[in-house]
């Protein structure tokens, strides 16, 4: 007779088969059998976080920085509800995760048992898919499917809910070699006829623009995007999620676009005659008011793996459904086979226009100020790390300054919650990044409000010796909220002042880390050098910054892209 394994053993064996090296989690009653099996082996290493939200963010940071599936493990009830913010964050940014949750025993489901919640119901709107495993016989195949669904097509989080009795029952373990699902067959190759139409439009363009988003990063298509842009000589912008998809130090890069995008990127977006949208979804933070966007006439090519992203907010002329990398390979091939070239005279004139927009120097700030300007901290961070660090961020002004001033030349180096905008993401995400990239410099750019949302993870960082550098741009305000109140609510700063702040230096020290407080502009660079020199230490750098600095440019909500508030 073949030996039978318990559901818990099968779960761990599946993770081993998937090549999972780290799993981020927190134990509890419903997952005790699974923890017992994790304990008995050492291939899948468990990282104990201090809050389930952090487990999911850490798995997420791991996935974003490595292109592997991130895995988290939480218990039933409050374990799951704590994890929901993390799951929704990953869902909005299309990050491949498998979240395993414990559930009360099958016979207790529906009886309001201790620590029971309808996990599948609660998470349904914020997962790519979820499963409740009711029978041990389905467990291995379900986990296989979960990894497959999470990582193919438009990626996303998949949750597998395992009742406690299922983790205890036994069956013969067989891990399926492959998955075939009649209801799920994501396309990869784009339609070559559509690509031909795109080539035609591109070659006829007078004022072209390439607008590339997170899809470029997710499909590992940065090399193809770079080749395309350089071959055509077109201007290129990246969304907040796409930064690093095209090298920011190249002159063809016109900066990030959108609500806090550069003047030149937003103006070029508004005034181009042919727009090539690549793995981007015309988000409300990107194009502002869609009506205003259509005041100008342009033809749009849209490449995306998700058909429902196409013509959702903006009607397009040439939709191409497929994985960005496959489509770009084909597009480049077709372009190379054509004798015609782009209209160079028109392109030169267009570049002259863009350069005049660029000369507006929209990111300028007072470099001589007697207080620390947050922008300057990011510029120095860029300088000190040689542009080579992994940068995670929280949500707020500091996030926008990091996006504007750290020039990302490589993909998967900029890790932020773009879609959901989750404060508290930065530190746990940095933990996942550090696990996926041991030995690489990892910095978390944050604010004094955001960092307090997952500050407990300083303890996790100590336990696993994660030498993350925390760059706290401390303006004593929920700066982004304060900025909106200043601009749109008559300077009434309702509840946006951060009172009763801890002494972050002593707080960091109490966890066994190094803390630094930096108050003078002249000290910023040296302090950063010192901190990054401490290669095996977490350093909490508390920068006391200008309290009332604002992020510019800004497209106010409901306004058009070219209606920016400029400094």
């Amino acid at each position, binding site marked *: 007779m073949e030996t039978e394994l318990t559901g818990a053993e099968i779960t761990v064996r599946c993770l081993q088969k998937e090549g999972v090296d780290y799993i981020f989690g927190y134990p509890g009653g419903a997952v005790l059998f699974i923890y017992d099996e994790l304990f008995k082996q050492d291939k899948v290493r468990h990282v104990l976080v201090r809050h389930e939200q952090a487990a999911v963010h850490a798995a997420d940071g791991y996935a974003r920085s490595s292109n592997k599936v991130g895995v988290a493990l939480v218990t039933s009830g409050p374990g799951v509800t704590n994890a929901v913010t993390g799951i929704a964050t990953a869902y909005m940014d299309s990050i491949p995760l498998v979240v395993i949750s414990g559930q009360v025993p099958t016979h207790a489901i529906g009886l309001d048992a201790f620590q029971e919640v309808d996990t*599948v119901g609660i998470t349904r709107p914020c997962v790519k898919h979820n499963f*409740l495993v009711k029978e041990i016989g389905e467990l291995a195949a379900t986990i296989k499917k979960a990894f497959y669904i999470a990582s193919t097509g438009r990626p996303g989080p998949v949750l597998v809910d395992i009742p406690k009795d299922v983790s205890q029952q036994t069956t013969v373990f067989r891990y399926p070699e492959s998955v075939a699902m009649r209801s*799920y067959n994501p396309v990869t190759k784009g339609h070559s006829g559509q690509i031909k139409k795109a080539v035609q439009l591109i070659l006829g363009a007078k004022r072209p623009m390439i607008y590339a988003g997170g899809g470029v990063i997710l499909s590992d298509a940065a090399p193809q995007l770079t080749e395309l842009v350089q071959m055509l000589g077109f201007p290129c912008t990246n969304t907040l999620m796409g930064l690093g998809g095209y090298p920011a130090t190249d002159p063809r890069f016109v900066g990030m676009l959108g609500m806090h995008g550069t003047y030149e990127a937003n103006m070029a977006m508004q005034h181009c005659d042919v727009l090539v949208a690549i793995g981007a979804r015309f988000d409300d933070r990107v194009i502002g008011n869609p009506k205003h966007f259509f005041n100008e006439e342009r033809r749009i090519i849209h490449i995306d793996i998700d058909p*429902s992203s196409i013509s959702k907010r903006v009607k397009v002329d040439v939709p191409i459904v497929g994985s960005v990398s496959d489509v770009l390979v084909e597009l480049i091939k077709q372009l190379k086979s054509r004798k015609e070239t782009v209209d160079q005279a028109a392109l030169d004139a267009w570049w002259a226009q863009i350069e005049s927009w660029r000369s507006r120097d929209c990111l300028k700030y007072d470099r001589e100020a007697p207080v620390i300007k947050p922008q300057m901290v990011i510029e120095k961070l860029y300088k000190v790390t040689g542009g080579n660090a992994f940068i995670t961020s929280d949500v707020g002004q500091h996030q926008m300054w990091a996006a504007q001033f750290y020039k990302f030349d490589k993909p998967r180096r900029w890790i932020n919650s773009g879609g959901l905008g989750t404060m508290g993401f930065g530190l746990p995400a940095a933990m996942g990044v550090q696990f996926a990239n041991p030995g690489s410099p990892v910095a978390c750019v944050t604010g004094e409000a955001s960092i307090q949302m997952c500050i407990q993870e300083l303890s996790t960082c100590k336990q696993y010796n994660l030498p993350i550098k925390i760059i706290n741009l401390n303006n004593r305000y929920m700066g982004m909220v304060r900025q909106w109140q200043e601009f749109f609510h008559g300077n009434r700063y309702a509840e946006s002042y951060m009172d009763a702040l801890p002494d972050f230096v002593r707080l960091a020290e109490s966890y066994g880390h190094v803390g630094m407080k930096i108050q003078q502009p002249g000290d910023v660079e040296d302090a950063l050098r010192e901190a990054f020199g401490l290669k095996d230490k977490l350093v909490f750098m508390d920068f006391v910054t200008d309290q009332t600095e604002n992020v510019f440019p800004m497209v106010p909500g409901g306004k058009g892209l070219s209606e920016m508030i400029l400094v």
Partner: protein
Amino acid sequence: MRHIISLLMENEAGALSRVAGLFSSRAYNIESLTVAPTEDPTLSRMTVVTTGSDDVVEQITKQLNKLIEVVKVVDLSEGDHIEREMMLIKLRAVGEDRQEIKRMADIFRGRIIDVTDKSYTIELTGTGSKLDAFLDGVNRSAILETVRTGASGIGRGERILKV
């Protein structure tokens, strides 16, 4: 515009709530929704009647296709199709009303399927507007109870929705 969308999906627990949840979370209209297993017990067939602009309906079909358990989606209203809905209606039937109600049921090709000395229960099948017309035709105060299944639809001729 009114659209009738048919889909085939895996006959699994929770599949229905994914579809219903999609409509509510994305604020799509839902006029009626019917679902039952097909001749292949691993598949369910669902018919959803919705209203929306062409853009919205395009999004609805794309979003439905995106659900992992949905195997196929067609917008039946894009071509020739047949639509039927069934209604059971219980009417107060006393005195001379009994004759009148029976006559109405005949005109609409309804069948009387339950009789008491005070009531008739009629089964009526047709398009939604036929059922509406029947309701308009009978004396409102005589209606004791109605139950409608919501529309089911099928393509005409060679238009077939199958895996």
